[in-house]
């Protein structure tokens, strides 16, 4: 029972970490960035680079953030910006980008699965049960990310401008806020977050050129259901992630893998705003 509860909480934390970057981009720019999976993969390979350089695994996080941010700059400038007025085309272009990044990584690193040593090994004893230490650490990381993003949005000037653009872009522009700068910064931050997430999940997953793909649809559905609010994303992660764990455990893991997508689609049909308020 405790194990199940821990499973739910840690799964929700992982989903939150992976989806936070996508949420930022969707909330501000109202487009779905299908290259999110590619950024996850880039982050995963950042840890490979760090490992080859002989550094401690934890250096992978800032490395991933940096590579993600820089890649995000190029992507926003050349692919996303020309497609502001065509959101469906933006989905396709970012999907195409994902294919390109996957092939380039394959050409550079090879198709094989890369092994990266975990920073924290094994299980710890928690309230009478053994549980994976790294998964518990990720819960802490998710909280940290939520707090950091919350501070960025609510405590900084850029964050205030971002919230204005999220609510009403035309009005914000009319008030002198440079919405293109906000969009640019948001996309780069979202890409950096995605890369960091890719780095953080490597101890639990493997690093290969397609590692990001299975996460795209799940993250995508969570973001659609959350609108543009971090709080809704947290709620959605817990509810839908919990549903996934319960279905996987009590019914069968194949259906569990489909739970998030199907539940989210049905939820949006009934209530198009999802978990967001009003």
């Amino acid at each position, binding site marked *: 029972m405790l194990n199940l509860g821990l499973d739910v909480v840690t799964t929700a934390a992982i989903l939150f970490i992976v989806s936070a970057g996508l949420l930022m981009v969707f909330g501000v720019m109202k487009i779905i960035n299908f290259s999110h999976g590619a950024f996850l993969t880039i982050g995963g390979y950042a840890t490979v680079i760090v490992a080859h350089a002989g550094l401690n695994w934890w250096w992978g996080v800032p490395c991933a953030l940096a590579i993600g941010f820089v890649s995000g700059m190029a992507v926003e400038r050349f692919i996303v910006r020309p497609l502001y007025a065509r959101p469906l085309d933006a989905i396709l272009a970012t999907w195409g980008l994902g*294919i390109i990044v996957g092939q380039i990584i394959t050409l550079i690193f090879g198709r094989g699965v890369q092994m990266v040593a975990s920073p924290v090994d094994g299980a710890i004893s928690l309230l009478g049960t053994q549980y994976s230490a790294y998964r518990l650490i990720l819960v802490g990381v998710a909280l940290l990310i939520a707090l950091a993003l919350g501070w960025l949005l609510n405590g900084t000037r850029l964050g205030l401008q971002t919230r204005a653009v999220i609510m009403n872009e035309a009005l914000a522009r009319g008030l002198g806020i440079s919405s293109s700068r906000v969009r640019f910064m948001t996309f780069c931050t979202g890409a950096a977050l995605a890369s960091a997430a890719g780095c953080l999940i490597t101890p639990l997953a493997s690093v290969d050129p397609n590692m990001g793909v299975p996460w795209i649809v799940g993250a995508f559905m969570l973001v*659609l259901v959350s609108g543009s609010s971090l709080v809704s994303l947290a709620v959605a992660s817990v509810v839908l992630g919990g549903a996934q764990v319960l279905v996987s455990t009590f019914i069968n893991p194949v259906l569990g893998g489909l739970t998030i997508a199907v539940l989210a689609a049905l939820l949006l049909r009934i209530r198009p705003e999802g978990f967001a308020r009003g």
Partner: protein
Amino acid sequence: MADPVSTMPLRTGGVSAWKAPVAIGVAALVVLAVCSVTLPTFLVNNLIRAFLYAAVALTVDLLWGYTGILTFGQSAFFGIGAYAAGLIFTHAGFSLPLAVGALAAGLGAAWIVSRMVGWLAFYHGASPLYASVVTLVLPIVLVQGIYSGGEFTGSSSGLSGFDSIDIPLEAWFFVAGAFLVGLAVTAWLFVRSDAGRLMVAIRENEARCEYLGINVSRYKARLMDACAVIAAFAGFLFACVQMVVAPEYAGFVFGTELVIWVALGGRGSLIGPIIGAMSIDVGSAYLSGNLPYVWTLLVGVAFVVVIVAMPRGLAPLVAGVARQAMPRRRRIAPAPVTFVAAQQRAGGFADNTRPALSLRNVQKHFGSLRVLDDISFDARAGELLSLIGPNGAGKSTLMRCIADGAERSAGTVEIGGTEIRTLAPYDCVALGVGRKFQTATVFESLSVAEALRIARYRVAPPSKWERDSTLELPQPALDVLRLTGLDRIPERECRYLSHGQKQALELAMVLALEPRTVLLDEPTAGLTKQERTQIGEIFVELSSRYRMCLLLVEHDLDFVQQISSRIVVLHQGRIVMDGSVEEVVHSDLVRAVYAGDAHAAANQPEEEA
């Protein structure tokens, strides 16, 4: 929301429009028959597959390129057709009755799944993003289902080794090719027909279509049903000729490949997806063996470049080159159309004695913000009622509440005596109200005549195959067209009209619905003085001569004073005055309202009309 991609013109002159496509189709069949015996086996094998893929790509283009529904799910329907054949032939054996049964099962299953997708994705107010999401989830769910099917479905290994229709490969080449040719010719006829232009109208301006009385959601769902069945048929043929089915044919990677082929070949055209699918598929058979990763990378790069920089794809480039190579080609023009007066419909709205519009206690609030509070009034035939008030008074919101049953938060709205409850705009239109938007919203890629024909969709459904050379319009619409000179330029594309002409065209489109009540949202915005006078005369004529009820939202008080028979003043969501022109114009209250003296306005009691 409109994606600004135009349709490639695909028209030839002449009324007997079906002759050219059919002739080309027959010629293609002859070429196929000859090729089936002359081409080498390897190419024949590849082309059979490529023909069937191209057919599915064509359905993707009909949905996405023409109608604006981005779908990743056509592969799922292809897979359903293929697995119907695979499952039945593997577990029940093969015979002709079983084959027919398998085909029926595949088509039926595809139709059922399409109905479900349609229910989920197409409803009033659905966002196009959500529809794409549903089409994305569909193949994922289907493939997982196939994987979990164990030995019954063959799981990840697929099913193979089953018996199938035993005809030589050359015959299959002809069958697959004929399927593609038949589909292309049918699609060509449909797309060029009057009904087919509706797809473009929906892609460009869905809201306008809804307010013209067209049930857009049902149209999209029907279109998807048709495309699903076609894709399933292609899948069935594929399984019969290849004698193997595998989950990857139903999956989401294949679904996105179809979109990529259509994008590269040229969306919104019929030859585009065929060229895209066939050249990339056959090309990869020859090239990808030598450079497996680079090939995918090249396709990916080409795809991104095309989406960003050349959204119409490569087909228009090719067509442009072809056109230059054949300079004597006649410049193709749409079929000429003449406007005629429509017969007065018996049992129209003129007989109805109840008020054209009747509002009681209508309210609208966003959370705790009250935009409209306790709005009640009647409007009768022949009245020209102007709604005025300072900005933020709620005038546009009120217009929306009358034309869209889901908009208001409380109260009743009756149109011609019938309550609208929560009806969608297209149903409200059926009750007799037409709405003209503030910014002229017409269909950029369509001609004047085509736009007006779309407006007549509900009253006179256009043919699915033909292009009519006459268009019947009610007298009020004809008057507007004649007065503004639009009746002399029926084939001009809407994007080339001036702002005033677009406003007039939209008015004519709304009048083409033969409404009893017309809602006009700031009709004089952006018009010159002369145009303003012109349109004022039109309004007066509509109300006095044709006995329509006109409800205007206006800021130009001189204009309002000249033409209205009655004025309603709105302030902070409430009616503060409802009376004749003299009463309102000389009222201190109204002056105070416009000057911003809200306190005085709130304290004045309402006056009944």
